[in-house]
């Protein structure tokens, strides 16, 4: 199936090395059981799109991967480091896992360049000059080097999101998580962010994206995961997933988002 598909996604190289291993993971908010028995293995170089109705736990799941949320049962191993209460492990994982948020979450009191160099300088202890150089290369890669000395408040939403991507990349992460990166953007600006993400995918980055951009999923993803009610309901290669969904809930969801 994958070989016949036109998608660039399936054509790109995926190694056998395991990047993220989630086994029997459960999470509760108080009494509410948000995530139920999540099992997921992500290989290095995979590009996974997670979709599902709101409240299905997709954001919560990827936020567990860098411990923005704590899980209560099961295990999550990222880059051979198990996420436990050990702060050292958590910091080690966070250094390797970049995250892009729906609302960008840039630091408004710092310039674009300072946003990008802050973590390398203070966390990775990169000399300031080197950090600036590498930040400028990443800003060029997301095509906004000329905005480096502005403040986030002066940029458009699309530009801010690209800065947020550059900021994560400056830490040289091995895995990138995207939590609905285009949901807060005006329609005009979605494509500039998606182009950046496609570019990133083509460079071989391991990516997990929570998104409803199905065009992006078809083009880039090698696997699409559908979640509902805190469970992984279905996963497949994009062509098979969109053209031939198996579960009733998946069919309903796809019919709702594709035919409006």
């Amino acid at each position, binding site marked *: 199936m994958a070989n016949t598909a036109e998608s660039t996604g399936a054509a790109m190289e995926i190694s056998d090395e395991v990047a993220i291993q989630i086994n029997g993971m459960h999470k509760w908010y108080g009494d509410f059981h948000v995530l139920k028995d999540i099992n997921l293995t992500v290989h290095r170089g995979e590009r996974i799109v997670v979709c599902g109705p709101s409240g299905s736990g997709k954001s919560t799941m990827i936020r567990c991967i*860098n*411990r*923005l949320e704590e899980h209560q049962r099961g295990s999550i191993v990222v880059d051979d480091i198990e996420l436990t209460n050990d*702060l050292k492990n958590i*910091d080690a994982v*966070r*250094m390797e*896992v*970049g*995250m892009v*948020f729906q*609302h960008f*979450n*840039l*630091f*408004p*009191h710092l310039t674009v360049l300072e946003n990008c160099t*802050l*973590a390398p300088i*203070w*966390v990775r202890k990169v000399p300031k000059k080197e950090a600036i150089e590498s930040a400028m290369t990443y800003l060029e890669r997301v095509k906004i080097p000329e905005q480096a000395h502005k*403040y986030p*408040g*002066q940029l458009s939403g699309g530009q801010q999101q690209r800065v947020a991507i550059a*900021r*994560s990349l400056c*830490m040289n992460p091995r895995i990138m998580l995207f939590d609905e990166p285009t949901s807060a953007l005006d329609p005009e600006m979605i494509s500039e962010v998606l182009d950046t993400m496609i570019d990133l995918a083509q460079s071989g980055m391991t990516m997990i994206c929570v998104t409803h951009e199905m065009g992006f999923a078809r083009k880039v993803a090698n696997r699409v995961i559908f979640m509902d009610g805190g469970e992984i309901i279905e996963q497949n290669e994009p062509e098979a997933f969109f053209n031939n969904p198996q579960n009733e809930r998946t069919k309903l969801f796809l019919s709702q988002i594709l035919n409006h």
Partner: protein
Amino acid sequence: MTDISYVKTERHESLPPPKSEVGIIHWLRSNLFSTWYNSIGTVAVLYLFYLVVPPLVDWALISPVWDAQSNQDCRFEGAGACWGFIGARINLFFYGFYDMENYWRPTLVGLMLLFLAIPILFEQVPRKVASGGFALFALFWAIWAIGGIGTVASLNLAVAAGVFLFLAAVAIASYLKAPRSACAIAVVAAFPWLSVSLLYGPLNVESLQSGFGIAIYAILLIGGGALGLWSRQRRDALGTMVGFLLAYAALVIIYMSWGMDLTVQPTNTFGGLMLTLVLSVVAIGVSLPLGIVLALGRRAHTMPAVQMLCIGFIELVRAVPLITILFMAQFMLPLFLPEGVNFDNVVRALVGVSMFASAYMAEVVRGGLQAIPKGQFEAADSLGLNFFLKMRLIILPQALKIVIPGIVSTFIGLFKDTSLVSIIGLMDLLLIAKSSVTDSKWLGLEHEAYFFIALIYFVFCFGMSRYSIYLERKLHTGHKR
């Protein structure tokens, strides 16, 4: 059927606004005479000004008595304010009962504070100007002190050398582009002890009076320094900190007991503006950092014990009037202290005022912390910043910026609240004014005395208020283009 299709073929150019929207006339119209009741209000206020301002100007500036030996000189027909009284008592207002030949000591501390504060408070002051001004000040001071010009012939050469070296070091460091934070740390680490030694003199440290005690301090000093250096080489952060802190503490105690060999100036001679400034500068300096720590502690949900402690302190202190705290520090503290340990009155007031201000500051800072969106915490976490880096680099700069008006309000309130120490017998500015008009030579001059100290309070408080506006503008990054 009407044709609904329409295509714009060219762009409309931007035109200047109509005359009625700009200029002075527009401003007067829209602000002072926009409606009939607004016009009446404007006229009424102008009439009130006419009634109040000319007599006040006449009293204060046009017909006052500038030179007077006693209140008799001011008692004639048409006499305005008796400023001669303020002139004759100005030293009392500024220094309280401090020995006259030691006036240079508080003056020096004040000037040092001013020179140290300017480059830290105003980022635009270029380094060269700041450090140059500093070096000049140090040089003048050294010449004046060593030369023994005027009344300071008894001045110890060591004082001059010590202060000169400190000032010169800060000047050189800031000239050599040492990071601003390094200069600030140097100032914070040295200025308080330097000031205590200058204002008060040597402390009586009992443990330093035996050979055994001296040996222990020497061991602490040298051992701490060695431990610090050794740990630093091994990149052991904890060891470095503990080592250097030990050495620093030992150094401070040794230094304070020497006190630059000045004569002791008992704190019951502190008074007037000087005491007010000592109280408020210390309380401001203590309450901001302590308030931040308390605010963070109050939000530390993962450490219930710390949280309870912080909540307890804040709520307890806020629920009690400052006067009560001062009385308690005065009369109840001795009950809890072991026999023979005795705190100075001024120190007690300092502790009370600082504690009180910290509790309020903690709540102000907490307000700022609460205004920071959760996303900022998450973004910092996701980049791998640990708790201290996250707070220092991301959260606190934003939170403190939001609450600058609240912080400065607290400072202003605190500055004025220091006048309450008069009820435990400290001669602050207010009590000095109150008692100076009971002098039989100057009876009946309440107006002048209170007007004068009101002016002093106003200058300081208004200055703080303006500074807060300046800071807000400087830190505003949202829409700057």
